[in-house]
């Protein structure tokens, strides 16, 4: 980020004539990409952002943002944030445990390749089919539900577990959150040098002290950064939740989906504001990710 900020003014001042002659032409090579990015990424997003601050006749207003302040919308944001936080946290903890077990815990090396490949598959196995898999497993007639009922007489429903609820969604989202964590954190764990652990041991540190005072501080930016990525990942997901519970679950992406399809809020510009809120939240999460990642990579060179 810092290099990018200082780089652009340089060519005009420093580069001799060939670069100057080639400058307009060489920028032309980026035209297709720029056109694509502007038309299908930046302009559509701008449309939403500006739309959030406009009245139907086009003048500036803050009313749309203020209108987000209804109970139903606030609850949907809060549920979404809670869902994303919990799945990101559990995904990080469990994924970290598995990755650490694989890299440092003395598990046979043979499991490394298959586990990483499987993580690649599972982290991409989201959306509608994932919902089906969980319905077939934990749903009312699912494998585990039936097994527990017939073999042990345990009725999950009587214990308050319902797949088509908040916690059901948490269980389902973890199926792609955990593998994503494994994929991202494994290179960071590989970057922990054996010498650091040995140096700590030589100086008399216990295993707990090594983790608390050496390894975790080094891994901390990676961990927090991955947490932010998992958060954004869960926050923007529509398909899994929609296929699992249909349009009734009150989370932001589902609400926005219904709004785009049928203007359920009764105000098109409130839809813009709803989407704008999503951009702000995932934007913050990803900004944290990029920033912390840049910091963590300094350690792991």
């Amino acid at each position, binding site marked *: 980020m810092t290099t990018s900020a200082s780089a652009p003014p340089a060519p005009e001042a420093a580069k001799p004539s060939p670069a100057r002659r080639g400058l307009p032409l060489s920028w032309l090579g980026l035209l297709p990409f720029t056109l694509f990015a502007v038309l299908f990424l930046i302009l559509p997003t701008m449309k939403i952002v500006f739309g959030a601050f406009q009245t139907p006749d086009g003048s500036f207003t803050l009313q749309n943002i203020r209108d987000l302040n209804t109970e139903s919308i606030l609850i949907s944001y809060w549920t979404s944030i809670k869902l994303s936080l919990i799945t990101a946290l559990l995904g990080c903890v469990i994924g970290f445990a598995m990755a650490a077990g694989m890299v440092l815990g003395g598990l046979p090396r043979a499991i490394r390749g298959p586990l990483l490949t499987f993580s690649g598959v599972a982290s991409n196995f989201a959306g509608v089919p994932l919902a089906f898999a969980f319905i077939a497993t934990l749903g009312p007639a699912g494998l585990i539900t039936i097994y527990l009922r017939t073999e042990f007489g345990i009725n999950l429903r009587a214990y308050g577990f319902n797949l088509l609820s908040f916690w059901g969604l948490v269980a389902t989202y973890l199926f792609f959150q955990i593998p994503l964590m494994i994929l991202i954190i494994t290179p960071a764990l590989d970057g922990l040098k054996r010498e650091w652990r040995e140096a700590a041991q030589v100086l008399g540190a216990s295993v707990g002290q090594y983790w608390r005072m050496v390894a975790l501080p080094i891994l901390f930016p990676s961990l927090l950064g991955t947490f932010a990525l998992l958060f954004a990942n869960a926050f923007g997901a529509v398909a899994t939740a929609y296929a699992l519970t249909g349009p009734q679950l009150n989370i932001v992406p589902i609400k926005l*989906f219904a709004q785009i399809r049928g203007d359920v809020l009764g105000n098109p510009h409130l839809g813009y504001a709803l989407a704008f809120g999503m951009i702000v939240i995932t934007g913050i999460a990803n900004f944290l990710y990029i920033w912390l990642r840049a910091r963590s990579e300094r350690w792991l060179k």
Partner: protein
Amino acid sequence: MTRLLAWAALLFGLLYFFLPLAGMTEFSMKMRRGVYSFDAYRAVLGDAKFQETFGYSVAMAFATIVFGVLLVVPTAYWVRLKLPRARPYIEFITLLPLVIPAIVIVFGYIRLYNTSSWLPLTGSITGTNFLLMMGYATLALPYMYRSVDTGLRTIDVATLTEAAQSLGAGWVTILARLILPNVLVAVLSGAFLTFAIVIGEFTMAALLDRPAFGPYMQLLGANRAYEPPALAVIAFVITWGCMGLIQLVTRFSKHERAKA
């Protein structure tokens, strides 16, 4: 002690990942009462709607891959060769689709390119298909660009280009016969990942109202019992196939390089 915890974590994870897969497979074979059968698969595969939507999504995936390759390879090559100082900006843009949720992007499309706008893409079927392809291309952009850019890092772009130019090659020849073959593994990895993303995508296709595989699966899920898990098994096999192919081409290229 550490080893015990490591095994515990691994076993928990394996169980957690294995059970839903077992659940969906078992459930998908229970259509016929009392015995396991492939009736659900027969019902799904024989459904005309399935063939239609699956064919549509496969076609969209191929179109997206071709477009993505034509867009990303020349751009990444050009940035490496001529405009290294533009790299942070390009990289930032390619990461934007991870920041902006897909549903927000497609919402923008619908409002920006509706029938009363300056570019009424959603007014015709071809236009909407094109818009959907662009949407898929943005979804795949972070992975495709990263993959190709990493691939370009392993070759000496400047020297190869100069060598080709001194032999009289033009830009198209350089890109098609020099750069593309050299980053083929990276391109294929990006392509398989794009395929895995596009084939089951739900949000964009549903909101643009196109007959894709994702919305079809959702619709079936709301109305049937045994076919959805069969679809899930099929989708899982496809995802697994894509990831397997990525591994395969990567390993193959290592083998090739080792020989050379």
